[in-house]
């Protein structure tokens, strides 16, 4: 492939390849057919694969996930699209109580190869319920896998890997990055659950995923002007977490800062900070710090920039970490 693609196009190509490679793979969701999805991620797929493989569904999220479970029981590999992050909550029981637990309840007799794609998080000036970061709910649920790419290459290959997985995968697409372009290589260069060092450094480790990876890269570039060399790790997978990679990096730099859009309280950062503190205590020069959203509903778009971590908030945390 080795082409420059937007994340949106890279995802589209991943779905196309998955549909081509396995006749049991099918797509379901609202407006994914003729419209190609509200973000056009499924653009052209119904035309090429037909409406029995790319299925416009009724406007019912629990129904979309619940019927995907039944299709998986029948041997299909459903990939469903939830139109926006905040609309997934009506499907919560089907995801956390049904989909996540089916394999365990059947003592392994059935598999649930269901991928749930969700355009998530903010920064696009949307109205309410269109900018939520709910990764902690799903990562907290045993039986689910949760991943989020930050580049076109990862968007493509991680989605293909997710669809091939025999476990249910919550696939969080950073919607404000849909139009960012990058080179998509010819093959997956990492396992789906491996973290990636996207910028090496020595003074502190910035840990991020999805939309915040770009913010952290910008922060690292700015910090370099001040002579600070920050390492940026793209977590990629939120369940499981590649703690080995994080531990190695934090032990080397002595400082760790977790950055995400979701509210800090009981978020991914809380878990990462706690575990890294347990594992790296004698190597740490400062407590693991967290940068994220506030304990407030996602705000109206005119003030969302105050809610979302930006370069300055990340650099401020770097200053605090280095001051210890």
């Amino acid at each position, binding site marked *: 492939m080795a082409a420059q693609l937007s994340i949106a196009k890279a995802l589209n190509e991943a779905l196309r390849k998955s549909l081509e490679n396995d006749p049991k793979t*099918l797509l379901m969701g609202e407006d994914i057919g003729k419209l190609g999805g509200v973000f056009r991620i499924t653009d052209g797929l119904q035309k090429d694969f037909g409406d*029995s493989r790319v299925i416009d*569904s*009724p406007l*019912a999220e*629990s*129904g979309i*996930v*619940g*019927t*995907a*479970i*039944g*299709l*998986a*029981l*029948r*041997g*299909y590999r*459903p990939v469903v699209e939830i139109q926006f992050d905040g609309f997934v909550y*009506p499907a919560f*029981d*089907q995801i956390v*109580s*049904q989909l996540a*637990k*089916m*394999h*365990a*309840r*059947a*003592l*392994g*007799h*059935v*598999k*649930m190869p269901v991928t749930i794609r969700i355009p998530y998080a903010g920064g696009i000036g949307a109205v309410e319920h269109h900018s939520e970061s709910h990764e902690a709910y799903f990562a907290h649920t*045993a*039986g689910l*896998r949760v991943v989020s790419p930050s580049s076109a290459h990862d968007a493509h290959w991680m989605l293909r890997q997710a669809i091939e*997985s*025999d*476990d249910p995968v919550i696939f969080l697409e950073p919607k404000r990055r849909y139009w960012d372009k990058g080179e998509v290589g010819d093959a997956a260069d990492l396992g789906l*659950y491996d973290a990636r060092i996207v910028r090496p450094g020595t003074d502190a480790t910035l840990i991020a995923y999805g939309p915040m990876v770009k913010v952290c890269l910008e922060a690292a570039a700015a910090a370099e002007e001040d002579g600070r060399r920050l390492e940026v790790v793209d977590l990629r997978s939120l*369940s*499981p*977490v*590649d*703690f080995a990679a994080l531990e190695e990096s934090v032990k080397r730099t002595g400082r760790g800062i977790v950055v995400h859009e979701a509210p800090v309280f009981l978020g991914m950062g809380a878990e990462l900070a706690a575990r890294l503190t347990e594992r790296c205590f004698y190597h740490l020069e400062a407590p693991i710090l967290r940068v994220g959203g506030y304990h407030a509903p996602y705000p109206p778009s005119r003030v969302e920039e105050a809610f979302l971590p930006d370069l300055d908030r990340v650099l401020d945390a770097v200053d605090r970490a280095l001051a210890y």
Partner: protein
Amino acid sequence: MTVKSTARARKKAAPGVPDTLRATGTDTQPELVQLLTPEGERIEHPDYPLTTTPDELRALYRDLVLVRRFDAEATALQRQGELGLWASLLGQEAAQVGSGRAMRTGDYAFPTYREHGVAWCRDVDPLNLLGMFRGVNHGGWDPNEKNFHLYTIVIGAQTLHATGYAMGITKDGADDAVIAYFGDGASSQGDVNEAFTFASVYNAPVVFFCQNNQWAISEPTTTQTKIPLYRRASGFGFPGVRVDGNDVLACLAVTRWALDHARSGNGPVLIEAFTYRMGAHTTSDDPTRYRPSEETEAWKAKDPITRLRALLEKEGLAEEEFFASIEAESEQLGLRVREGVRTMPDPDPTLIFDHVYAEPHTLVDEERAEYVEYAASFEAGENL
């Protein structure tokens, strides 16, 4: 009894919507399909003809008696502390056996947690059903072995699984159908209504089999609906029919019709089996707090087993010897269930980690290793 017809013949015979489905009814004067009166009289119904051989009638009687015995045994085992909980089907045997025996091998059932009679008809070992209630697993059987899905406790969630499975049947071009079981309480759930929508618009071969046993724990059906439940179907664009849920022959005939209707490409059907839960919701419940005893007494007169026995005796289709043999078989089943439960092994605690994921997951692997090491430390005496 109706002979086994070919798929082609079934398609040709794909029935329209019988007149009765257009009828209205109320809960107090239910207009329901009945083929066997409480007194044991066979009656004909123009839309649901059913011919039965004496052997088939005797087999249905055997099913009803054994299913009731299994249920009674499980209730007793709960009282003895062998099961943590039991959801009794007492009174609903005909609805379950009639619908269960209407299924073909390739058909698939999605139960709630009370479909012990349907499991029986699917040839699922009754002991499998007890693991969840004893606390040794959350289900545990392979749903695809007998086409009988795991019990689902969250009310109505399984109706969507059934619908999705049925959508898969359509995609496969297969000649099978699905039954989704649920209760009158579940009819209020969003998932059930979403399942109706999906099944309807995708023409999925699924029969929604609602056992209206009149009570959702302590709440009467009138708390769930202001119209007879079978009429909900018309708003979703498919037929609904109310059947005497204590009449095994009517349940058999109507379900067989509905499954054929669905598998012939005509889309879903809602069946409301009008029945009664004679016991408690579960063994944790106390129906005397909310339910008048006169009501329970009135339903006792409609007992599904008594009326089939009356027919067998009246028509001279079974001798005392037959009834005695069923009784003996029932004793054997009771014994097997009692012994089976008492000797059911507790799982190894590492079961906690065994099937969380189909593929390896580092966190689960780590926690398993931690647990194993911790448990081993007791054996080594380190924590004593």
